[in-house]
């Protein structure tokens, strides 16, 4: 009987990802990914998001400046990043993330590969904060 009650309780609850600052899915498209490499031109080590701007050269040689968004500094520092140490303007950065819905060179940066090959997360996974599609 006790086991039945526990199972019933578990099935009547939902585990939820708790939103911090804002919804992922408003601005970014989780159905597409972007993996590119370029040179860092600017770093905004700020709240509520840190931004890294990267010049990416396409196959024709045209340079596009990407804006990459991620965790606030406090979270980055607990994830292994150090301001002005881990990355600097001029460094090469490879990035994996999800692009903006509007097609602009703007992305949610999930994983960064530094010039020395070290990989670190820079932002949360896709879908954070937008809630389920249907009321539960």
């Amino acid at each position: 009987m006790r086991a039945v009650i526990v199972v019933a309780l578990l099935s009547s609850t939902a585990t939820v990802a708790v939103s911090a600052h804002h919804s992922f899915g408003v601005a970014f498209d989780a159905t597409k990914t972007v993996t590119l490499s370029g040179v860092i031109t600017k770093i905004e080590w700020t709240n509520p998001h840190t931004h890294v701007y990267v010049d990416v050269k396409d196959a024709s040689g045209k340079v596009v400046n990407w804006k990459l968004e991620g965790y606030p500094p406090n979270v980055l520092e607990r994830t292994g990043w150090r301001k002005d140490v881990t990355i600097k303007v001029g460094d090469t950065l490879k990035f994996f993330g999800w692009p903006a819905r509007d097609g602009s060179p703007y992305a949610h940066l999930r994983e960064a590969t530094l010039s020395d090959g070290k990989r670190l997360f820079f932002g949360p996974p896709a879908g954070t904060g937008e809630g389920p599609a249907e009321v539960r």
Partner: protein
Amino acid sequence: MRPPTHFVLRRGRLAGLLLACVLIAATALAQTKPQPAPRTSDGKPDFTGIYQASSRRGGWDAEAPGDEPGVPAERRPIAVTTTEPIPFRPEARARAQEILNRRSIDDPTGHCIYAASPRITGVGLFPIQFVQTPTQMIILYEYMTVHRVVPINGKHPDDLSPSFMGDSVGRWEGDTFVVDVIGFKPGGWLTGGLVTSDALHLTERYTRVDRDQLNYEVTIDDPKVLTKPFAQRTTLMLREGARLREYSCAENNLDPGVYEKLLKDPSTFTRSPGKSK
């Protein structure tokens, strides 16, 4: 008769090996066996410490990349919050569905307006610090750099003015610290599209079940939007060595500008039930 020298050496090595095994086992047991919660001089459980909403004991939970891009090496939830089905009133349910359809673009936290305790307690990215005295429980949240000063055995003020986080008073029920929270501004956002009213009433129960684990259970009642109360639970895990830092949300909040452009054509981001992407 003395045993041969090589046998004495072997026996000595065997004894040393056994002793090492016992020490390793004892150390492992000490590390895994929960230690009792500390207590204050007046015998109450002492909550003093820094915690993270998490399901794991030990150091700060921070994900590291694995083999697949974007996927952590170790798949584990940073925070686990369970929520009972929300007993919405019909109009509140319709509003919640509309919020989810719009992917929560109107969430006040996007404008750096902070939320009530059930939401900010479960955000596992940021630490929470408890400072306990015989007359007050002070709770400091790194997320949004907010705090609550909860008088113990106090009463809500007569001149209560509505606020985003409400007015809290606490009491001990055995080893559980119970906090009664009222006096909210209407329009706060909690979980799953729930927008609360000025009738929101929280009953929070904090229990430090052992040295590492502080259980959080909240009963959320809001008769203007709910047909009955419902509960949400999470665990806060002690994180020795962690420290609270500043989170100045309004410093460089570019999101309202991004949203203003997106709202010119909501069809670019809205969704409908059954279509999550």
